[in-house]
């Protein structure tokens, strides 16, 4: 066997990046895992449960997060972004920009005292802005590394040269306002890109009323609303009046399969809307759900059976048809206008809560990253993958996995990630 001398860099610490890193690390290869946020975990950490097993998402993810943190072959670079790349397969030089955390990583024990005292209230991106966090924070309770971060944009010390209260209450003297951003250089043999996806903002679809109607939410918002660790503590109520919703509607293909927005299919929505309806039903057996769809795409293992289960055991009705218009009544109930194709009649149906299955879209900085890495993107700004060898990018030594190349679900991302790990390993063995 040839000797391995180079590290592999993995960009993105979601489930794909984590799986790729773990495979490589277990394979005996040293990995630099680059994560833009303060914690790894990505989108999967935001989910309540996962289809088709309805496993609690964070519960199956958490052991992997811990493994990533503890593995001697993995170096975690959080709050970090790739700024420059030179060299070629076997010998890449990468410049990484590391934002200061203002918290000493070795000292903070995540006791949370600083959070209690921090006077700032900031929109919490992890919770889809459904609640506020503080200016010193951790993305989520199980977040890894499990230490605090000060958000410079909102911290009173940085904005108004005041406060510093966290510094005073921290018994371990872990706060360090003198930390500075730094640039480090890594030398790696191959690179795996696993930067994931963003969510389409349905505000531009005016007829659906998102942003105007409080009881029209996106699927990821709903995921947080229903999550045990979410802003409602797992007790589902609707935004306008905190009443328990009984009639739910999901609208599939919001912003996808749509030439005017995103022509592609978002791959997972048929399944995750079913899952969310199932979880809602488990919370409250009086809940009835309608899922409006164009084609029910459930080709994965056990997926079709999952849909059948939803229909038979979870009071889900699947209604063929896309919804163009949502109205609202005086009690702020969303009213869906849809065509019942059995009668060819257009009907109006009142729901308590409407959930929009919004498309997975490329990360907003995907094009910038593609330029830095020198890889191609496709027409929609996903990273361009080989048609038959999907982990292969347009550049030698750089591999792709997960939703950064195409919308996909967790199992596909995990497969993709392991596959990319194999290719990245192969590359440094040749190189």
């Amino acid at each position, binding site marked *: 066997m040839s000797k391995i001398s180079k590290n592999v860099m993995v960009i993105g610490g979601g489930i794909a990046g984590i799986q790729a890193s773990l495979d490589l690390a277990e394979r005996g290869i040293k990995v630099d895992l680059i994560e833009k946020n303060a914690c790894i975990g990505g989108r999967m950490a935001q989910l309540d449960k996962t289809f088709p*097993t309805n496993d609690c998402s964070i*519960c199956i993810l958490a052991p992997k997060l811990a493994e990533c943190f503890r593995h001697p072959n993995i170096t975690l670079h959080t709050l970090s972004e790739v700024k420059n790349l030179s060299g070629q397969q076997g010998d890449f030089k990468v410049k990484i920009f590391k934002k200061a955390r203002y918290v000493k990583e070795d000292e903070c024990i995540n006791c949370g005292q600083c959070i209690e005292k921090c006077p700032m209230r900031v929109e919490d991106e992890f919770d889809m802005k459904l609640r506020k966090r503080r200016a010193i924070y951790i993305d989520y309770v199980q977040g890894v590394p499990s230490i605090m971060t000060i958000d410079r944009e909102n911290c009173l010390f940085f904005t108004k040269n005041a406060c510093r209260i966290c510094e005073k209450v921290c018994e371990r003297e872990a706060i360090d306002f003198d930390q500075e951003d730094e640039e480090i250089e890594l030398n790696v043999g191959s690179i795996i890109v696993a930067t994931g996806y963003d969510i389409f903002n349905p505000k531009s679809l005016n007829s659906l009323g998102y942003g105007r109607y409080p009881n029209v939410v996106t699927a990821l918002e709903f995921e947080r609303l229903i999550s045990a*660790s979410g802003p409602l503590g797992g007790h589902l109520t609707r935004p306008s009046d905190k009443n328990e919703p009984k009639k739910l509607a999901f609208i599939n293909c919001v912003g996808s399969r749509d030439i005017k927005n995103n022509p592609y299919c978002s791959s997972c929505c048929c399944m995750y809307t079913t899952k969310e309806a199932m979880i809602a039903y488990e919370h409250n057996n009086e809940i009835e759900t309608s899922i409006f769809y164009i084609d029910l795409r459930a080709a994965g293992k056990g997926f*079709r*059976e999952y849909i059948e289960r939803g229909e038979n055991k979870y009071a889900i009705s699947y209604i063929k048809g896309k919804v163009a218009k949502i109205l609202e009544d005086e009690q702020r109930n969303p009213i869906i206008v849809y065509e019942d194709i059995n009668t060819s009649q257009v009907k109006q149906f009142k729901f308590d809560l409407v959930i929009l299955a919004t498309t997975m879209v490329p990360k907003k900085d995907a094009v910038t990253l593609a330029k830095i890495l020198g890889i191609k993107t496709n027409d929609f700004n996903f990273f361009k993958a080989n048609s*038959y060898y999907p982990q292969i990018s347009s550049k030698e030594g750089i591999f792709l996995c997960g939703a950064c190349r195409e919308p996909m679900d967790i199992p596909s991302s995990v497969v993709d990630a392991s596959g990319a790990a194999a290719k990245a390993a192969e590359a440094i063995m040749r190189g």
Partner: protein
Amino acid sequence: MSNEDIRIGVFICHCGTNIGGVLDITELIEYTKTLPNVAYSAGNLYTCSEVGLSNIRENIKEHNLNRVIVASCSPRTHEPLFRSTCQEAGLNPYLFEMVNIRDQDSWVHMKEPQKGTEKAKDLIRMSVYKASLLEPLEKMQVSVIPSAAVIGGGIAGMNAALTLANQSFKVSLIEKDSELGGLIRHLHKTYPTNEDASNILETRNLAESHKEIDVYKSATIEKIEGYVGNYKIVILQEKKMIEIEVGAIIVATGARVLSPEGYYNYNGKTIISQLELEGLLKENSVNAKNIAMIQCVGCRNEERRYCSNICCMTALKNAILIKEQNPDANITIIFRDIQAQGVTYEEYYRRAREMGIIFIKYLPDKPPIIKEDHLEVYNEFMNQVIGIPHDLVVLSMPLIANEDSERLAKMLKVPLEENNFFLEAHVKLRPVDFATDGVFVCGSAHWPADISESISQSNAAASRASTILSKEMLEVEGSTAEVNPDLCIGCEACIKICPYSAISKDEETDTAVVNKVVCKGCGVCGASCPQNAIIIHHFTSDQIIAEIVTYGGGD
């Protein structure tokens, strides 16, 4: 260790609101403190978080704990993590016990929190009694043979072999047919690029000429024994038995196409299968002008509930190819849901519409009826029956599991799911692993997969296999069975029942012997032994009886 020395620490997990929202954790903590040998008891918001884990480590030291119990979720997902946490704090990992008060308690008793809390008390108490009797165990070390066997020489198998071989691992690629290539050999062109299938088949030459790959064609597997890192496979090739030794096995046996015989008056001439159409396209002999394709033939029904994943795209591809050759052809695809996930496939579907291919959705209870020169189908979009002229009907048949998958599964001691596809260890997070260590799966053997999916999975399986092959030594489970030769009467009941073939007979002493590396500690042998001669370490009779007794099962 005498009873006085036992110091148990109990960590009760809130799991956010998963447990804490139902059970009264404070009450549980207080209750636990009253139990014998409990030196410490506390709650954790999320025990599996880094905070929770360091909390365990610190308290082991601070309170001098020598047994640890975590009352939380399922050992299936979390036991390895907690065990290694104990180990990091200097405690033997087998002095750890886990109580599932979530999946089996707070989730089932969501509506009756008081009863749930009482049940949790019982469960924790039982665990405390067992923990007092736990013994330290050692994990075994085994060496690893740094080579792999790939079973099946289709695109998945060939690519898995290549990926491993390119990393300098020796690979035996075993194919039952006389040539490599699998189903792709029968295809005309491949989606989504519509290039000749022969392009993809070039992988064949790469695999056959790779110096690290030994290809066995016209070869069948006769026997598989051994365990992770050390498998022995007996291959039958041209009446010759060949024995190979490998550290890991990748199953890439693919699937087959369901025969169209008996569906929709199939006649092989005017009513043919999609696979037969590929053949006609290859020979450039599609003469029909009005072609109707029917999707989901023989699947998504009572008999076969699943969607076969690849048939929509295959039909789209062949329809597009015919249209490209003959723009005047009228092609109608009669479908249930068009499965064209993702970016490229949806684009491909749009392209098919752009070329003028017609799509009609049908309902399973009103399938199309084929008449002499037209077919009739109830069109859900119009609420009426529509006639479609045809001179050729093409049936899209699903991929089904190979006939010999059951035989192979038995030899590998891995499970199949209800449709006889191989069942992975965990749908979400271990999609190409088996629960059995050292065995992996990819391609259509796992589930109907197209070329790019098969390749992606084969890379993944190769990656997973390489995590084993790259190690010189592996650690294996320490909680195994042990036969007391003094009590054993050599009846072989345990040998017959062991699902892992871990027990054999020592001919000299005429007693059963457990191969500890293969043994998973499942306990079946212990339960079947008429002599009580088998000890299942970590689940000893004493330990289990202590649990039962304290629950109230007499003395």
